[in-house]
């Protein structure tokens, strides 16, 4: 219920305020919108042009070591955008840069549009790669064989049979990439490329929350617009296997002499998206020397954990009834209920945080309440919980579908009541899903930047915030230990994802 009331309430407040303010559709705002969409479409193009062949190569060809390469291609998931941006920024520049210090190379700092595209593409490529790869693995080879037997060549089959079947996966991947770019704060702020998010931040920082509201509205509207378009495009797709019979193994395309070229492609991607950030962090760590960094890092680590652990528990606790309702009482309303967490996920974090601030600071909120919640830890935990709720619902739901309602009915038929059944059968069966849910939300919160920037209590310095602050001040060495801590947690995140994927098979 809170999940419903919150975004709606905030939207209402938002639009009320917006009317008293300068109109949303000014020339500068239109330019902002254009810059945001330009960035999103370029990143989408880059990730598609790389992700599609990479997925195909690791699924449908006899590429040697393709499993290993697939894992390597997923690794950039462990590197948050702002760490990526930090790494790229510290590579070049006129003074004290990684390349300058190590090799004596002088390159320009990759700032602005180009830098943003590079960092965001590297960070988003795994999402596109993974969705396309999963879809390709599920392709039914008999459909392609049928098309071949009907006289179409390999290339024609690729266009007429394979590509159309990949459409839903591509749309889902594209949706993720676009939402990430639109909502991104860490990369664009460090790279200094003005998008809606960055302007929202600077406006809020230099002025008031009210002034930033129109931009936040545009941000939300943009995200909603993309979701509506995607749903419209998806509606017309239907891809069930018609008829029975088991799908067989796919035949592999031999790529023979192309091997070196393919390895070069993977190596280049890996170099930019993993070696550069990890190497940069390692380099700056080595430059730290005698600086006493551990007390600060420990402090930040504690802060991050302090906010992330309760959020992970809350999100999982809320996810259980949501998933249970959907799996056991399928109806229109439970369908809507299950979708609600995705609103929290799709709402750009900065806009979400701003809406919470506006709610807290609204004139009708009594002073005692305002003092309790504004810039308080519970509010931050609340924001984390609902922003990442969708991540918690997924694993709980899939383990619930795995279990199926028959188990509960079996327990009832054996003489156990509803409550006993829940604790003795449902919960134990869900245990694995609950652990994965908690791990995912916890690790996401550990990396989270924009919500923390706006909502954290004064002096509440998390790992992510430290990385951003030091990078913004061009103190790359000082940022390194915090970035390293985040990389370690993120690597654990990817580990959980990969393990979960393995258990699903």
């Amino acid at each position, binding site marked *: 219920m809170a999940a419903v009331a919150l975004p709606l309430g905030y939207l209402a407040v938002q639009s009320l305020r917006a009317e008293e303010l300068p109109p949303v559709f000014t020339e500068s705002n239109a330019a902002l919108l254009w810059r945001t969409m330009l960035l999103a479409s370029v990143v989408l193009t880059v990730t598609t042009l790389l992700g599609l062949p990479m997925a195909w190569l690791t699924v449908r060809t006899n590429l040697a070591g393709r499993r290993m390469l697939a894992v390597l291609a997923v690794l950039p998931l462990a590197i948050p955008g702002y760490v990526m941006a930090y790494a790229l920024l510290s590579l070049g520049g006129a003074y004290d840069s990684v390349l300058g210090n190590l090799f004596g190379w002088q390159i320009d700092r990759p700032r602005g549009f180009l830098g943003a595209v590079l960092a965001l593409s590297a960070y988003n490529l795994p999402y596109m790669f993974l969705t396309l790869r999963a879809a390709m693995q599920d392709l039914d080879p008999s459909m392609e064989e049928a098309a071949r037997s009907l006289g179409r060549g390999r290339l024609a089959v690729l266009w007429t049979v394979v590509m159309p079947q990949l459409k839903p996966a591509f749309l889902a991947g594209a949706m993720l990439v676009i939402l990430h770019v639109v909502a991104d704060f860490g990369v664009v702020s460090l790279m200094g490329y003005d998008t809606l998010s960055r302007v929202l931040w600077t406006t809020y920082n230099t002025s008031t929350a009210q002034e930033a509201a129109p931009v936040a509205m545009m941000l939300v509207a943009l995200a909603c617009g993309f979701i509506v378009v995607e749903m419209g495009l998806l509606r017309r797709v239907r891809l069930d296997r018609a008829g029975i019979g088991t799908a067989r193994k796919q035949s592999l395309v031999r790529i023979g002499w192309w091997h070196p070229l393919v390895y070069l492609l993977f190596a280049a991607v890996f170099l930019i998206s993993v070696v550069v950030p990890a190497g940069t962090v390692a380099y700056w760590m080595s430059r730290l020397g005698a600086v006493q960094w551990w007390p600060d890092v420990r402090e930040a680590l504690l802060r991050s954990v302090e906010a992330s652990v309760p959020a992970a528990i809350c999100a999982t606790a809320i996810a259980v009834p949501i998933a249970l309702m959907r799996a056991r009482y399928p109806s229109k309303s439970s369908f809507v209920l299950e979708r609600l967490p995705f609103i929290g996920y799709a709402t750009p974090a900065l806009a979400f945080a701003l809406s919470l601030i506006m709610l807290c600071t609204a004139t009708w909120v009594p002073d005692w309440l305002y003092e309790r919640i504004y810039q308080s830890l519970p509010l931050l935990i609340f924001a984390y919980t609902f922003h990442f709720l969708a991540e918690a619902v997924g694993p709980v739901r899939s383990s619930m579908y795995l279990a199926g309602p028959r188990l509960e009915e079996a327990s009832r*038929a*054996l003489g156990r009541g509803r409550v006993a059944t829940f604790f003795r059968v449902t919960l134990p069966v869900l245990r694995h899903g609950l652990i994965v849910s908690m791990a995912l939300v916890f690790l996401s919160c550990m990396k989270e930047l924009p919500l923390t920037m706006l909502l954290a209590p004064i002096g509440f310095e998390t790992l992510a915030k430290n990385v951003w602050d030091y990078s913004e001040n061009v103190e790359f060495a000082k940022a390194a230990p915090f970035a390293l801590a985040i990389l370690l947690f993120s690597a654990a995140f990817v580990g959980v994802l990969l393990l979960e994927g393995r258990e699903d098979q």
Partner: protein
Amino acid sequence: MTAPLLRIRHLTKRFVPDGPPVVDDVAFEVNRGEILVLLGPSGCGKTTTLRLIAGFEHAEHGYIVLDDRVLTVTPGCGGAPGIKPVHIRPERRGIGFVFQDYALFPHLSVLRNTTYGLRGAWWTRKARALEALRLVGMADLAHRKPHTLSGGQQQRVALARSMAPAPKLILLDEPFSNLDAGLREATRLEVRKLLHEQNMAAILVTHDQEEALSFGDRIAVMNCGRIEQIGSPVEVYEKPATTFVASFLGRTNLMKVNAKAGVAPSAIGTLRLDRAVDGDVTVSLRPEHLSLTPAANGDTGEVISRDFRGHDLIFRVRVGEETYTVHTDYRCRFEPGDRVNVLASEAAVVVDAKKK
């Protein structure tokens, strides 16, 4: 004769309000120790009927009484119009249920699965569970987890689990359909023997007519939410009450004839009917009640197909406008194109009585 164990009247259920009923005014009884089979095509409401009896679904109308205990009653049913509706919760019904996919608890061992439905001290529960597992031959694997078992073994555990609390009635929802053909037949016989030995009544749901005939003491044939006929396997097979029963249970030749005092002319000569009726009726003649002889007199037909199956043969024979299916033993050696006479060795069964 003692009172039946389970009595069901007017049982009705719709999933969509104002939609067609999935279970439509179903009534039947199950006696102590008796195995009743609910047979019907998929979507005929047989599984829903079973779930209504187990209490997983709420009946819209009707009453269910087990051993003089009212499990389900709706107003206007089985009592005064103002009677309070009753729906005993599944866990209070004392009815065992074996699911099609077994629904073994994946986080519990075989033994723990089996003790799950038992109450009391651990050692008594354990002893009882082991006894049930021994009955199905699974006591040796009591400490294994369900996913390490084969389909047939899981099936046995599921059965032991629902039999352990010694319910008076066990409901079996297509429990053999996930087993492969060879195992299915053996398991079927074993389970049947076991149920009879324990004197447990059971209701089995299946769409497999062969399974129904061999497993059931009685068979209830369902179609479109209604029970079309209830009777012993022999009765239902030999005297189908409706065209649906006749064609669903085995192969049959259905024909429309004009009867007069228990006999009717047809393409294969004058047919003897199983009862004295007059007028237009539909009759059913089982293929094995027909035989073939080399063409001799007027009503000859032509063999149009021959399906050799080793121990027997199935012929399709065209006589005039009609085509007959004839089931003969291995000795009948006709080829397509041969001229033959079709003879009925039994009386044809009238499947739509005079009322229509």
